């Protein structure tokens, strides 16, 4: 399976307009260690949810996921809690860009967001633009990932992508 085809289980379904304060409360913004942000994922709104996420699980949401603040900790918390991919009807633009930049696969699919249920085993094809429910074989259309975004995701995010470019030219070099 290529790095653009991912399999996972839907750990939870969330509604529309899940904002960045619900994902990661403002009071924890002075935590700058990315891995540690996961400890506060959905802490105020859905405190029980984090424990249900197994490594590689998917989260499914409605429209405008990640609206609100530009806080990158919201993306980091989802990623380091072990989420393998986010599938939503739509994403707020800063959250979407943050996800690509941190190497978290994000899938825009109103069809899949409307149909998938908790516990479904799913395969997503980021480049081809599809989401498949494995038990029934149903295929839902998704927006294919922009080539620029795919390149960043393949590198593991913007930092590793640029790191290659600056290798040997940086601090102490």
């Amino acid at each position, binding site marked *: 399976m290529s790095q653009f085809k991912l399999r996972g289980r839907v750990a939870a379904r969330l509604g529309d307009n899940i904002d960045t304060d619900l994902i990661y409360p403002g009071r924890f*913004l*002075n935590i700058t260690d990315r891995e540690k942000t996961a400890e506060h994922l959905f802490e105020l709104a859905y405190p029980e949810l984090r424990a249900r996420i197994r490594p590689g699980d998917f989260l499914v949401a409605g429209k405008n996921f990640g609206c609100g603040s530009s806080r990158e900790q919201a*993306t980091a918390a989802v990623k380091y809690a072990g989420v393998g991919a986010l599938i939503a009807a*739509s994403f707020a633009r800063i959250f979407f860009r943050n996800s690509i930049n941190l190497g978290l696969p994000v899938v825009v699919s109103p069809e899949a967001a409307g149909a998938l249920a908790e516990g479904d085993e799913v395969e997503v094809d980021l480049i081809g633009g599809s989401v498949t429910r494995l038990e029934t074989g149903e295929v839902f259309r998704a927006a294919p990932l922009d080539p620029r975004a795919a390149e960043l995701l393949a590198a593991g995010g*913007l*930092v590793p992508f640029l*790191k290659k470019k600056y290798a040997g*030219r940086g601090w102490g070099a």
Partner: protein
Amino acid sequence: MGMTLAEKILARASGREKVAPDEIVVASIDLAMSHENADLVRKSFLEIGAPRVWDPERIVIILDHRVPAESERTAATHKAIREFVHSQGIRHFYDVGRGGICHQVLAENGHVLPGMVVVGTDSHTTTHGAFGAFATGIGATEMAGVWAEGHLWFKVPATLRILVQGEFPPWVSAKDLILHIIGRLGADGADYRAVEFDGPAVRTMTVASRMVLANLSMEMGAKVAFTPVDDTLLEYLEARTGRTIPDSPDFAPDPDAAYERVIEVNVSREVTEPQIACPHSVDNVRPLSEVRGTPVDQAVVGSCTNGRLEDLAIAAEIVRGRRVHPRTRLLVIPASQQILLEAIRLGYVQALIEAGAMINPPGCGPCVGVHQGILAAGEVCISSTNRNFVGRMGSKDSMVYLASPAVVAASAIAGEIAHPEEIVGEEVA
């Protein structure tokens, strides 16, 4: 076919004749702003391994979210930022006591000019569309890339043009207008889009009020939001920069630009009374008359949306000679040190303090739910800030209503959500 303002600026910044919606362009960045999350940017920047920031003159860093430091962890963050700024030769650094809220500080120090591409690690960076700049929020890692490279890719946004006709009725402000528009279009009504505000009602607005429109456009998902570049703005910029900025066709959309949608709003007819965004989303907007009488525990005047001098002026006018209701507390947070100083000079601070308000230091205050006015479970706050999400200002079981500074001040006096006319109509004790 001509270009919208967003298209014009992106074409110029990417070295192209012409761009159209959905094209991807790589644009050079004129200004890169960060606040406390500069520490997060710094970490990613160091990981990338670029030798120096691309241009220290184009980076502005302003501490505002947690000033002065409320915890040891924040103090360490501030310290790391100071050391980085010093080591990279970044001169435009506004430390505790030297600035205020990042968007206000950029504006009042003349950092933003028409036609610029501005990125900030804060979603409300859209505010600077009030200065004719293509200004948008980005994340910290993306900013680290900008610090290294000096450019960034953008998808050219389609543009919504919002024409505001009519005249503002009494007690209806820019805040009420934009809340009405957000209520109409929804929290994702302008997602990924550029917004151009224009029309006679917009052109009569002060620069401070235009900033309210551009600022809150973020809450309907806008990537950027412009108000017109006209004499009002150019005079403001001249006063802030000490030089004349000649007007240019580059600062306005072409008359034959293509819009995704043109929306007309008649403020005289459609926004006849103050508007309130009710818990827990900014697009849950109702006219004041529907929520009047809701008891409030805390009232807040401040933030990058409504903490400017005209906001403090109206709040002071309403509370002058009156007392904040015994079961309510009023917090006032000037958006910057300059504004605080002016508000002292003009007597606003005295009027507010005599009425029983607490003046917080310039900064984001309780808006981000960190300090200086956190809400307990069950408490209700009316606030001139910009977000009322669950837990935004404290307990997940608290409620935040967003309103204009006039409505906030009136509600503080009444102890419940109130129309300013019922307060100023009463005799001063």
